[in-house]
């Protein structure tokens, strides 16, 4: 028997030949597509680029790290316990994951890098900050963040008691501008590293990364999950996951669905849909869809024509 469990008519078939031709054709198609269209290679954004191209955004982000108002500072698991993270109803999936990559943005993104500098003014600002109480730091940074927001830029901020915050923010901007912050944040305390958690979190706390992504149509509301930079194809197979973010409720903040959209999409909707696809053979109704939409008649039209019978079912 050479045709599985089939006892009806058979035809000649060369599995190896078919595989070889398929490999040849697909290889050629790949070479042609690669030669014609290439692949995207958009340069990374360094902290130096950010500081040089969007200094006000960089400066405001440093202040938000010190005041504890940044996204990272209030993120929750797995970086800190500032919030419980997202949940699906009463199921706190994010909290169950725990805090495994402890991130203290003010300390790790600002104070620790600045502590490596030998400049006396910077050293004095760092010493003043580290020597102050938690409440004092919070008051300095909070007041300055508010004043900065009201003024619009650092040079227009009204005078006030902001402690070392302006000096720290200015020093961090200078440090990033000459490239030292990239080295300090990426290398950290380890000689070898492949973990970019800290610099990517810091970069994500500002607006520059998002604005750049917006120009490349990569934002969530632009179906960005399935896009790539330029006109190159991205992960189009993620269309169903990104589809939910376009729905009212999921793409709005301030309601349960929007605030927990990631957990609901990736913790409930997509796993359930995947499970449905996996279990199609066992789900009444779903497994009958091919009989209701008889595309199989088209696929096997030659066979049915040859048999000249109406299929059962």
């Amino acid at each position: 028997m050479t045709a599985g469990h089939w006892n009806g008519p058979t035809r000649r078939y060369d599995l190896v030949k078919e595989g070889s031709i398929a490999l040849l054709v697909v290889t050629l198609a790949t070479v042609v597509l690669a030669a014609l269209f290439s692949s995207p290679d958009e340069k990374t954004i360094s902290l130096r680029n950010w500081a040089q191209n969007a200094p006000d955004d960089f400066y405001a982000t440093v202040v938000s790290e010190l005041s504890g108002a940044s996204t990272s500072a209030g993120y929750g698991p797995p970086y800190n316990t500032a919030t419980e993270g997202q949940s699906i109803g009463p199921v706190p999936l994010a909290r169950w994951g725990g805090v495994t990559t402890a991130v203290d943005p003010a300390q790790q993104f600002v104070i620790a890098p600045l502590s490596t500098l030998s400049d006396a003014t910077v050293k004095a600002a760092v010493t003043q900050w580290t020597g102050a109480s938690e409440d004092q730091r919070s008051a300095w940074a909070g007041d300055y963040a508010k004043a900065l927001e009201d003024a619009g830029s650092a040079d227009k901020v009204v005078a006030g008691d902001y402690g070392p915050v302006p000096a720290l923010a200015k020093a961090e901007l200078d440090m990033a501008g000459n490239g030292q912050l990239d080295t300090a944040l990426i290398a950290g305390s380890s000689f070898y590293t492949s973990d970019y958690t800290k610099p990517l979190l810091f970069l994500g706390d500002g607006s520059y990364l998002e604005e750049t992504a917006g120009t490349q149509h990569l934002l969530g509301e632009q179906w960005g999950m399935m896009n790539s930079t330029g006109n190159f194809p991205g992960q189009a197979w993620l269309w169903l996951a990104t589809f939910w973010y376009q729905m009212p409720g999921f793409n709005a903040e301030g309601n349960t669905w929007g605030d927990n959209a990631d957990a609901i999409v990736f913790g409930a909707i997509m796993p359930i849909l995947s499970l449905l696809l996996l279990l199609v053979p066992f789900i009444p109704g779903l497994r009958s869809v091919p009989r209701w939409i008889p595309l199989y008649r088209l696929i096997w039209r030659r066979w049915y024509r040859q048999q000249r019978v109406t299929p059962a079912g």
Partner: protein
Amino acid sequence: MSQAPATDIASDDSWTARLRRRTLDAMPSEQLLPDRQPAYVASWIYVFGVASLAALAVITVTGLVLTLGGLTWWHRSSVGHFMNSLHLWSVQLFFVFMVVHLWGKFFMAAWRGRRALTWMTGVVAFLVSIGAAFTGYLVQTSFDAQWIASEAKDGINAIGVGARWNVLDVGQMLLWHVALLPLGVSLIVLAHVLLVRVRGVVPPIGFESGEERRS
């Protein structure tokens, strides 16, 4: 070394002999490498299964070449960049072929006749491939990778997985991309193909054997 009598081989209860007998019983060579197919296996839709396998082979070869130069080689070398392009486009073709194959099999109700496991291994192969492709996008060491990692972390962290599987850790993602996930895809695809060979190609609706109708 003298050959043992055939009766001795048949009654050999060593683990090796048992495994050989079970393997040959389940997958006789003419079923693994058939030279005839049922007459109904005549449609363009059948091409997409083997095309998916061919694309997977191109992905594997181009991926292996990329590993020779290291993580950032393709940014510095025109050969590396072309290899990256081949890798990207073979992945795109792989998903196109696989999706057409999947929907084709859906509308053929290809799980009929004790073929549910064949369908399920195919779906798992599709899902694991999405993970493999996703980690590939994370390790491009380009702006795309920065943005995708920065956004994806929220989805992964929201379900608690980010506590162990850190998409911002390029080293961890690279090892998943070049070792664990390709191994997973390869094993599940191998199981899928073997099941197709063992169970045979699903017959047209209305032409199932009596045994297949009962199962």
